[in-house]
């Protein structure tokens, strides 16, 4: 956990429900956060960016890195983050990057798709150990 109890990596996750991959972004991100060390990552409020919720904007600015997790090729989470003026450190798309097939919500997905999605998110979180800026008090 970084300063002010803000997770080092801010995950902005689609969690849309119109397709299986949108839903999978939310569930896989919860599992990924559970698997990494406490404080390494937290799932933020994507809806708080376009609505300029102060608490969301402030915590996002305080995070060290931003990772977006989208399900389908529309890449809505990434677009919202960028439209809010932030630059993702990594972007993950479950269809394009993980090869998971998009289907209707009730198509769900299997254990294999879940494991692939979780691994992609854990890898994105895990490979960016934070280095304090020169002159930082930390």
């Amino acid at each position, binding site marked *: 956990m970084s300063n002010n*109890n803000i*997770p080092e990596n801010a995950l902005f*996750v*689609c*969690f*849309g*429900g*119109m*397709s299986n991959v*949108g*839903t999978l972004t*939310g569930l896989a*991100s*919860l599992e990924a956060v559970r698997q990494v060390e406490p404080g390494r990552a*937290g*799932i*933020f*409020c*994507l*809806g*708080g*960016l*376009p*609505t300029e*919720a102060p*608490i*969301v904007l402030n*915590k996002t600015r305080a995070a060290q890195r931003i990772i977006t997790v989208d399900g*389908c*090729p*529309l*890449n*809505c*989470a*990434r*677009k*919202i983050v960028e*439209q809010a003026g932030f630059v*993702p450190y*990594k*972007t*993950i*798309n479950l269809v*394009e*990057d993980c090869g998971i097939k*998009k*289907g*209707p*919500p*009730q*198509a769900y997905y299997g254990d294999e798709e879940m494991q692939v999605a979780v691994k992609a998110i854990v890898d*994105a979180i895990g490979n960016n150990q934070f280095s304090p800026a020169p002159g930082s008090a930390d």
Partner: protein
Amino acid sequence: MTEERSHEEDPAPQEHEDAEKPRVGLFYCGGAMSSVGELTGVAAFEVLKRLGPKEVGMGCVSALAAGIPKHFRTMHGLERVVVIDGCPNSCVRKIVEQTGTRMEAYINFGKDLKIKKVGPFKPLAYSQEDLERAVEAILNAVQSTP
């Protein structure tokens, strides 16, 4: 995974997108900085499980915020839209209002159901009782006469 991608529309629409639309759309927060945000998604999916995909469908709030035309068309084709927020920030309601879309019913778990917001970054810190109350409220909103 950082290469540029820009698609106004899904470049590879799937067959299911032409399938029969549900009667009611649930547009939920799904934010995970607090328990009530996550609860909106969990409760909405429980309602889908109980009523089935012909009666209710899940919406993509992020697609509205990102301005994806296809999702506006889908939303306007529904008989009834239920908007669900978890906390007083009311982000989904604001997104719906900002984008000029529609809602026939609105639920805010904090304001309307007095479910306690627990956070930050404690998405699963809601109780079974909270979940049951949330599901009941959504069921009522879905089944109310327009």
